[in-house]
């Protein structure tokens, strides 16, 4: 077998290289820079890295070559392992945008009286003298910035992977730093560490599933490359059991990451236990990256045997929506409620994913499955990041106050913050004139066009249930008399307030003039095969 030296398209891979480069430099900074300088250096590095990567993404997006008769744009880079096409750059843009939001939440220090939301010294056992000393000395973990940049790098690579091994590596690169970040909360550290442990164990388990799926699919297709797999699927090599089991195993790995039922069990615990800034980052960016990979895998590699996997996705989508919506009703904690709501959103997104149709079945100008899901991810990201940002502000003596009783009457004490939260909830509920409505409309429409009306019917029912708990939260904030101790809103620094402001403005703007972003998603074209 002849070894061919791969050519690396440095320019088109610039966002990946920048982000990973910054992460590596960040580790070096941790090793050599004196403690007081670390935070400003890390913050400058990370934000510059994200901005540069975003600028590079925009530049790449504007210069993508049109291929495949205009249906797609982009190129296959790094010897076929990375595919830089329209959907990839769209997802890169989203991930980088919301990662910047996450970074600003990470950097917030006013809420904890001059300290970050992360543990002073993660190695100090909770409740020990070492912990108290770390706290009194005002120690701070600045490792969170390089960790986050590694995660972002993984998230950029994940939806761009052109073969299954790269996809697996990207999955690990994005997951491992997240496991760690989840365990670094300054307050309620045991809860946080428990969350990290659960996330890690279940995540490792699901990664193993994914890897096994990779092996089986290789057994079927004789290649890791998505396009070769697609070719093998089209030619139907016989061993369809291998393929089906392989698809199933790969799906487990990916569905775990997006938090779809029945692989959702980690979501509420992790979302609740992790520092809220991490939750915001994770909820938005991981889901975007994982849905990108899911779409690419199913549309590109397994597009030809849609009829095999669509029923499975039907079942998963239905289950996910119902589990998310119904269990959210039973929650008494804002973070857990948002976690279940995010599970329900996963179900809605899957509804969009399963709405894939052959291009020939679509009318001119009709919305495509990919376009719908990409748009929904954008609306979802804005709402989630801003909502968790607001959660960090509502505090009492013990830190963030997330139980419902503490939120009672918040609308009278802080109308602006409660109003913003209400708007975000209305968007998640899918009320018109907010982004969530347009997103919901888009994913439901593509599913309906593909004939998945039972899924749409369940989705409508799940939306109705979901509306109940969103409205209950609004009622709690505006019309419920507070009893006992209540939380109040702490004024944040510019970091958190701008994240919330951008989220709210984005939610409104995408609700009233969704055209440009929809066009952008349409312009992204199809996946490059």
């Amino acid at each position, binding site marked *: 077998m002849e070894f061919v030296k791969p050519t690396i398209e440095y320019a088109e891979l610039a966002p990946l290289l920048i982000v990973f480069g910054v992460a590596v430099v960040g580790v070096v900074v941790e090793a050599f820079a004196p403690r007081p300088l670390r935070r400003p250096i890390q913050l400058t590095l990370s934000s510059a890295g994200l901005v540069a990567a975003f600028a590079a993404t925009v530049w790449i997006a504007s210069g993508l070559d049109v291929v495949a008769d205009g249906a797609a744009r982009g190129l296959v880079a790094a010897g076929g392992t990375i595919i830089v096409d329209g959907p990839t750059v769209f997802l890169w843009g989203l991930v980088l945008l919301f990662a910047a939001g996450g970074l600003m939440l990470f950097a917030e220090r006013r809420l904890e009286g001059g300290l970050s939301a992360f543990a002073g010294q993660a190695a100090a056992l909770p409740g020990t003298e070492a912990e108290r000393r770390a706290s009194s000395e005002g120690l701070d973990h600045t490792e969170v910035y390089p960790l986050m940049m590694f995660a972002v790098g993984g998230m950029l690579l994940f939806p761009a992977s052109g073969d299954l091994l790269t996809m697996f590596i990207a999955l690990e690169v994005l997951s491992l730093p997240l496991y760690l970040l989840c365990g670094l909360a300054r307050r309620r550290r045991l809860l946080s560490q428990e969350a990290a442990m659960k996330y890690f164990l279940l995540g490792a388990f699901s990664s193993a599933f994914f890897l096994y799926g990779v092996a089986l699919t290789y057994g079927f297709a004789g290649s890791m490359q998505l396009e070769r797999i697609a070719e093998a699927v089209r030619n139907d090599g016989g061993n369809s059991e291998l393929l089906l089991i392989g698809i199933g195993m790969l799906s487990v790995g990916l569905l775990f990451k997006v938090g779809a039922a029945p692989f959702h069990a980690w979501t509420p615990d992790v979302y609740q236990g992790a520092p809220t800034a991490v939750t915001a980052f994770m909820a938005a960016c991981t889901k975007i990256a994982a849905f990108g990979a899911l779409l690419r895998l199913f549309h590109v590699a397994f597009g030809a045997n849609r009829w095999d996997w669509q029923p499975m996705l039907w079942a998963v989508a239905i289950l996910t929506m119902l589990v998310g919506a119904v269990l959210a009703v039973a929650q008494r904690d804002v973070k857990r409620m948002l976690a279940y709501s995010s599970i329900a959103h996963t179900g809605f997104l899957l509804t969009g994913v399963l709405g894939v149709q052959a291009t020939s079945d*679509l*009318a*001119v*100008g*009709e*919305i495509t499955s990919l*376009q719908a899901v990409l748009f929904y991810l954008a609306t979802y990201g804005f709402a989630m990041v801003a909502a968790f940002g607001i959660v960090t502000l509502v505090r009492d003596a013990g830190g963030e106050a997330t139980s419902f009783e503490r939120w009672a009457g918040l609308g009278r004490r802080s109308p602006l913050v409660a109003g913003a939260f209400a708007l975000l909830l*209305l968007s998640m*509920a899918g*009320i*018109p*004139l907010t982004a969530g*409505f*347009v997103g*919901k*409309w*888009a994913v*439901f*429409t593509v599913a*309906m*066009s593909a004939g998945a009306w039972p899924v*749409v*019917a369940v989705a*409508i029912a799940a*939306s*109705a249930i979901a*509306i*109940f708990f969103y*409205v*209950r939260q609004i*009622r709690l904030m*505006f*019309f*419920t008399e507070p009893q006992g101790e209540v939380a109040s809103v702490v004024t944040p620094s510019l970091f958190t307030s701008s994240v919330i402001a951008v989220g709210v403005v984005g939610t409104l703007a995408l609700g009233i003039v*969704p*055209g440009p972003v*929809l*066009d952008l998603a*349409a312009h992204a074209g199809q996946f490059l095969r």
Partner: protein
Amino acid sequence: MTDLPWLTVLFAVPLLGAVLVALLPRSSATVLKQVGIAVSLLTAAVAVAIAVQYDVDGGMQLTETHTWIEAFGVHYALGIDGLGLLLVLLTVVLVPVVLLGAWHDGDEDPRAFVAWTLALEGLSLAVFTATDVFLFYVVFEATLIPAYFLIGGFGRVGRSAAAVKFLMFQLVGGLVLLAAVIGLYVVSADAGTPSYLLSDLMALDIDTTAGRWLFAGFFIAFAIKAPLFPVHTWLADTTEKATPGTSILLVCVLDKIGTFGMLRFCLGIFPEASEWATPLVVVLALVSIVYGALVAIGQDDVLRLIGLTSLSHFGFITLGIFVMSTLGGSGAVLYMVNHGLGTAALFLAAGYLIRRRGTTLISEMGGYERTMPMLAGLFLLAGLATLSLPGLSPFVSEFLVIVAAFDYHWLAGAVAVTGIVLAAIYVLWAYQRIMTGPGRVDVEAAPGATGSGAPDALDGSVTPGRATPGSATSGAGGVALAPPVAVAPAPAATTRDLGVREVVAAAPLVVGLVLFGFWPMPLLDVSNPTVESLLSHVGVTDDPPEVDSSTAPVGDIEEGH
């Protein structure tokens, strides 16, 4: 002049007004309310300007069409026809009436009350002028947000639960409608290019089965909105807990969207399915008429009572729409306007009364006729309008609907007629219990609450409760009931008669009721072309009259019943 986007201006004025009010300082409640009234009057002026330009036989006019979301085939498309014009005019009349008449309804937070009211007005006007189904859906759902905050923020104990119930019903209906709207996109995309324009959709040849499913989606949503039996249960709870002013906005404006939607979208886009569903809808409408009236008779809470009478009236409107004749259609359109005027007057009178007495329970009222003759007169007039007394405008519409119902099937007509009898019972019996008879003397009345009758700065004639001790009205005058539920931060019970503000607020309604009772032709001239074109679209032609008198001139108010 004609280049001005009139319809955009029409609903932008109250929306901007709402934003303006929200930005004003909270300090002076009076200024806030005055600004609110000024904005609503300005809106009314715009509506009048539109009405002046309106060409009765011009079909859909003053249209504006711009691409909004190209990917969805969605347009920002507005237009107005006879049906839309009448409802727009009704809305712009009722909002200032509410703001003026229900002056104290929003005293807990006047800024929020006025702002949400104006927002609701603007969104409702957008609903009545939208000619793109997607745009319609968006504003249709968006009206719920101000409505929710109006119900949840103002009114009696239990209002936040009532607001949630209201919202859940409406949103479930909205989601069913969403499914149908999405289905419409798929049908439209299958036929070529996806488009949500009403004109494109009306030209669409929809498969029979798909059409019936989509019709069901639209109809269920509108039936919940209207409301129609059996999805009406939110109505009485909402009107009971909300303030009378909010109820006027809800029942007289917002609920009209339901029947408006049936006419414009169910009949317009799904003519075949509408005809197919007629028997079921007629039965539901008849059940609503009788059931609503029967339940209304049994109510002790005056606000619940009025809410339930509306259930009966919406039954009449729906019946008029679905008997599929020009007579019924015109009657239904007219009924929407007249019901708006009559029920608003009734809610207004009830609101005045409740504010004076501090209770909504009929069993705790009585004998106010002598102390408050003007209020009693207003209540009686509104009540008589509700029971369709000849000479008042609802009579004309009810007569048309019933004639059309007899045309459809004698049984339908016969059942509908019982609605009139029952209406007479609930109105007159309520009037008798509230206004006539000896005044009540309740010994257990809380002493502290007696006769403090704080004069209302804006109400001219003030008669504090204690001013007439020993007279024949002492019973009523001296009574101060500790209200079982707080209505508003109202002063304790008084029996002063209507003040200037209250009379001015009620005047347009009274004038409308009497004027259109004797001379309904302007309304019919506006509505008839729309109804005729709609029904010809459905493919229905009226049966030739077998007896001349069955299509008697509608102005003939001598026709009793």
